[in-house]
């Protein structure tokens, strides 16, 4: 068996209903609304049991300070009602996990919801991802590898809750969870990667986040076997992180990166990054600090310019190097933190003891205060078809491998089917529950011009428009097929809203909002 892949949500350029910023009006995402930062560590110095997971939720105030934090573990209450959770904020995290190797464990599910000004804890019933029905912005992709040798997470689960109404959006339990590319929206915060370690003596990490800085402590000693990655920016269409550091051994190196100009078309406004030297899409300067650092030293990686609507604010990123820790902070010398900024830090390790395993972790920190965004473009049609997110089906996976091996040529046309039920990965075109209206047919979209590739994502390169002559009710899912009728389903997904069309009113899927993104991982190296 093998490896590969988690699918992710594609970013939609216009549909932003997200944590901490539900209405998407300019300045609505000020930190005064409260910001939650969520971190996860698989181990913690206080919890030597390697099967424990530690989850921390951090509440960040308007001035960037950490107002409080709370930890979650298997046995304790994890919500501290004294934290002063701000009204209007929403929490997103639900975790269940087992502290017992090989056992069922507690598997409790919790919801933290601060929307009423006071966090409440409730239980929820796990559902499948197919039932996600509300809008959580960002690219969530979970990686599950049943064949992976890492079993440190035993029946670990995570569920996501809507930032809009607190309802559960998705949940997942697995032997191995990896968050991969989460929440790219400027002004929102959170997320993390999970660290695994089967043998050895690593302590866990404490990740302290504020609106403007991030400190990671409890790291293992700096060693040549560890690569630290400073990452900044994600591709708007790919559900993968943009790796900016590529050292194979020692030190820290920063290169590449994106910046975002919010004056760009809508599909480009949802990511941000770090840029050095001004201008868009220029590389960061490269800075290597070598294989050993001096505790207490501070290293300037480079000047980072965050571009927002043509405004460049000079920033500097510093690495602070106390013993076994890294601090990242922005040191502004001009203006406020007007633009959302994201720093991603990751560490990869490779252990050669038996059994061998690999770990990779990320922290994603949005170092930004108020996010000033342009008004969301209002569609000129109703109802809208928004936020279709997709996955590769079983036939789609074979199709891709057929393309690779010369068994099949790329299809000249893909056909978009609209469904009243979200397709599954093993459905054929005949098994789809498509719209039954007499005037409904699948929409052909020519390949080569109608579809595009952006890094690891496949997406619609053109707007896809349909004008029903009758009402097409209950549109929930979509499928990209290889035939006008029947055939194979290659990619599929669901609309995050129930779509009901009206006779004569155009449905439109904006360019770049439909497709799939393929994630990559090495977690399943051995099976």
């Amino acid at each position, binding site marked *: *068996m*093998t*490896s*590969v*892949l*988690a*699918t992710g949500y594609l970013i939609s350029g216009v549909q932003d209903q997200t944590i901490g910023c539900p209405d998407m009006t300019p300045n609505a995402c000020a930190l005064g609304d409260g910001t939650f930062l969520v971190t996860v560590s698989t181990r913690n110095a206080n919890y030597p049991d390697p099967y424990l997971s530690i989850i921390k939720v951090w509440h960040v105030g308007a001035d960037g300070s950490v107002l409080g934090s709370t930890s979650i573990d298997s046995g304790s209450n994890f919500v501290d009602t004294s934290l002063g959770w701000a009204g209007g904020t929403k929490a997103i995290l639900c975790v269940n996990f087992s502290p017992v190797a090989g056992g069922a464990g507690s598997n409790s599910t919790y919801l933290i919801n601060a929307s009423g000004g006071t966090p409440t804890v409730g239980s929820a019933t*796990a*559902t*499948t*991802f*197919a039932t996600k029905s509300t809008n959580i912005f960002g690219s969530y992709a*979970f*990686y*599950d590898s049943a064949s992976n040798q890492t079993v440190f997470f035993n029946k670990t689960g995570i569920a996501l809750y809507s930032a809009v109404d607190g309802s559960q959006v998705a949940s*997942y339990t*697995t032997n191995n969870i990896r968050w991969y590319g989460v929440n790219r929206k400027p002004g929102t915060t959170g997320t993390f990667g999970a660290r695994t370690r089967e043998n050895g003596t690593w302590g866990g990490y404490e990740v302290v986040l504020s609106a403007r800085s991030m400190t990671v402590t409890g790291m293992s000693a700096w060693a040549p076997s560890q690569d630290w990655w400073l990452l900044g920016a994600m591709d708007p269409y790919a559900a*993968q992180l943009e790796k900016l550091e*590529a050292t194979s051994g020692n030190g820290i190196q920063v290169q590449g990166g994106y910046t975002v100009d919010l004056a760009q078309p809508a599909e480009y406004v949802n990511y941000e990054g770090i840029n050095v030297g001004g201008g868009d899409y220029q590389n960061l300067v490269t800075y290597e600090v070598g294989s050993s650092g001096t505790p207490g030293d501070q290293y300037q990686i480079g000047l980072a310019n965050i571009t927002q609507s043509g405004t460049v604010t000079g920033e500097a990123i510093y690495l602070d190097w106390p013993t076994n820790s890294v601090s990242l902070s922005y040191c502004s010398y001009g203006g406020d933190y007007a633009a959302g900024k994201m720093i991603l830090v990751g560490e*990869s390790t*490779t252990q050669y003891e038996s059994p*061998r395993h690999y770990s990779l972790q990320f922290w994603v920190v949005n170092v930004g205060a108020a996010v000033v965004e342009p008004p969301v473009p209002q569609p000129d049609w109703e109802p809208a078809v928004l936020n279709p997110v997709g*996955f*590769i*089906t*079983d036939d*789609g*996976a*074979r*199709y*891709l*491998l057929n*393309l*690779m*091996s*010369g*068994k099949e040529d*790329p299809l000249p046309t893909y056909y978009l089917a609209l469904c009243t039920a979200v397709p599954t*990965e*093993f459905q054929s075109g005949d098994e789809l529950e498509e719209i039954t209206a007499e005037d409904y047919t699948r929409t052909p979209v020519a*390949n*080569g011009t109608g*579809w*595009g*590739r952006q*890094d*690891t*994502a*496949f997406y619609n390169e053109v707007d896809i428009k349909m004008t029903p002559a009758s009402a097409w009710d209950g549109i929930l899912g979509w499928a990209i097929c290889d035939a006008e009728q029947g055939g194979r389903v*290659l990619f599929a997904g669901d609309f995050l809203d129930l779509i009901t069309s009206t006779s004569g009113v155009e449905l439109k899927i904006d360019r770049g909002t439909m497709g799939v993104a*393929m*994630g*990559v*991982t*090495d*977690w*399943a*190296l*051995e*099976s």
Partner: protein
Amino acid sequence: MAGFITAAGASYLMGLAAMSVSRLDNYYLALTLDVPTPIQTSGELLELANDDYIRSAIAATDDNWVLEQNTLSNALEVTFPVCEADWDGITGWALLDDPTDGEVLFGGDLGVPWTCPAGYQVVLTPGMLAVSIEVSPWEASA
């Protein structure tokens, strides 16, 4: 020799699906002294450096590959030159798009480091080189 797809590999497959790239004529199998990572260029690959070592080409044609379920594997033997001296520390493999440079499309782990003694030849019998794509995990559990 089960492998994993890399970022470049995923990009390549998506490019094929969108007709934004053409299928390569050949893929090139490299033996490495370390296990490749999902985001790695050829230049970063710690590849076997013996003078008599070269990557092995595998044509991207139907008869060279077998697809079963979601796993693509070699249909024919993949051979490397007879070692003139020991090839030590072979730990991983990478499938690339170029005989000497290029992008790493897939990578994998051989489990334990091993040596091809002088006078012997590395041969991958049919099915040994396997790559696959798992479908969406979103509906994998309730």
